[in-house]
């Protein structure tokens, strides 16, 4: 489990996160939702240690990430996998090498074992026959799946996905969502997903934290997100004409 206690983040004089208190539950897909610029990505960067919050704590099973010694932090980071918004695959490496990379860096497996693991991960995300291709030769959806394969290569305990559906068509988005929830349940990972994709919210949001202008405005799950009486959440969820029509039917 990951717990955030009173997390605040400042950039100079500007405060972008205000006393965030929430938790992300083990074996579940935990969503952070909110409008663009609400502070979702900053919050995720604080979670994975790319940014340090000025106030508050981030606890990974009671280990305070930002107060760990660097060797301990490195150990904890080896338990994390992350899928970036733009996939962040290493473009000088083939897909095979990308997935192999964390295994080369953090394991002492034999070449055969590593090869088996790479093939397993790529098959798990339905990517076959692309081993020798470079990221630039793949479509957006394939890149996201390759990034997921790389993220799960070392059996992470924590999986972070920053807007995994951005730039994808609705059908491919569904595939990615299904993959994330399947992998989370299959391996018992604590998954945290940043999204503003409404379809993801109502299909994979086992816990949902809604961030509004840097404040944690609402916490719940996919079953009550559509029936909340929080005005800011409703303005976010029912912003589009299609969802407004859906609201009328509820």
């Amino acid at each position: 489990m990951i717990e955030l206690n009173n997390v605040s983040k400042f950039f100079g004089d500007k405060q972008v996160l205000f006393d965030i208190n929430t938790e992300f539950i083990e074996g579940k897909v935990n969503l952070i939702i909110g409008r663009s610029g609400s502070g979702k990505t900053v919050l995720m960067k604080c979670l994975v240690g790319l940014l340090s919050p000025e106030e508050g704590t981030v606890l990974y099973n009671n280990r305070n990430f930002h107060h760990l010694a660097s060797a301990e932090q490195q150990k904890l980071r080896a338990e994390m996998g992350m899928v970036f918004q733009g996939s962040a695959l290493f473009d000088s490496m083939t897909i095979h090498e990308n997935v192999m990379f964390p295994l080369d860096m953090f394991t002492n497996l034999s070449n055969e074992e590593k090869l088996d693991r790479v093939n397993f991960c790529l098959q798990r995300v339905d990517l076959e026959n692309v081993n020798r291709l470079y990221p630039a030769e793949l479509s957006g959806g394939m890149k996201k799946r390759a990034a997921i394969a790389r993220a799960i290569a070392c059996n992470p305990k924590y999986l972070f996905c920053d807007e995994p559906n951005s730039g994808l068509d609705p059908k491919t988005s569904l595939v990615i969502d299904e993959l994330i929830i399947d992998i989370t349940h299959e391996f018992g990972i604590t998954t945290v997903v940043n999204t503003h994709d409404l379809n993801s919210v109502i299909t994979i949001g086992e816990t949902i934290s809604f961030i509004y202008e840097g404040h944690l405005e609402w916490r719940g799950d996919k079953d009550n997100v559509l029936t909340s009486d929080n005005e800011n959440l409703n303005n976010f969820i029912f912003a589009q004409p299609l969802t407004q029509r859906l609201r009328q039917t509820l």
Partner: protein
Amino acid sequence: MIEHFFITVGDYFIFLKKVFSKPDKWNIFFKKLIFEMDAMGVGSMLIVSIVSLAMGSVITMQTAMQIESSWIPSWTVGFVSRTSIVMELCPTIISLLLVGNLGSRITAEIGSMRVTEQIDALEVMGINPASYLVLPKIVASVIVNPVLIIFSIFFAIVGGYATIAMTGCVTTYDFMDGLTYCFRVYDVVYALVKTFFFAFVMSSVASFYGYKIDGGALELGKANTQGIVVSSFIILILNVLITQIML
């Protein structure tokens, strides 16, 4: 302006501290080192040899033209050309050329990795990106650049010799005589020491400007230009300092 200068210098040394930490895996470091040495060395060989041939040819012609006097022995052409080529032209001009060639490649490569979050991905994995990405480039450049300068000196002298053979302004015998007259190994050592420092500046400054990019494609272009200008400026200052110390 002055405050910004000191902040940048401080950031550069903090960056170097991160770069010079123990690699996470030595076998991967050596693999990357070999790759970088190949890319830098083989990739620059053609341009270095062409520029050196032309440079050797021109400096020999200019020297021959300037000392057309019966009072000055004709082997002076070879002697002056060799001294200019070994001590100044090849180490400094070729190093400046490599700043434009290799330095801009390094800034663009690391900068685009920063822009596309590949460096963040390394950091989240628990890898020190500065050491993983930059250390092999710095080590490769301080190994490869002196070798390139040796080749450059060779090609420049070949260029000079070919010019003398084709124009006949002095005999090739006199030219060769001048080339070997009062030859000091120390001159070559001086050239290689200079190149070593120039290579370090080129690769570390170029990496620093790529690594600290905050933004998109526009910033990448800006960082590339800044990297080249700052490296060239430091190289010119170092050139004066090293010459003062060593000669």
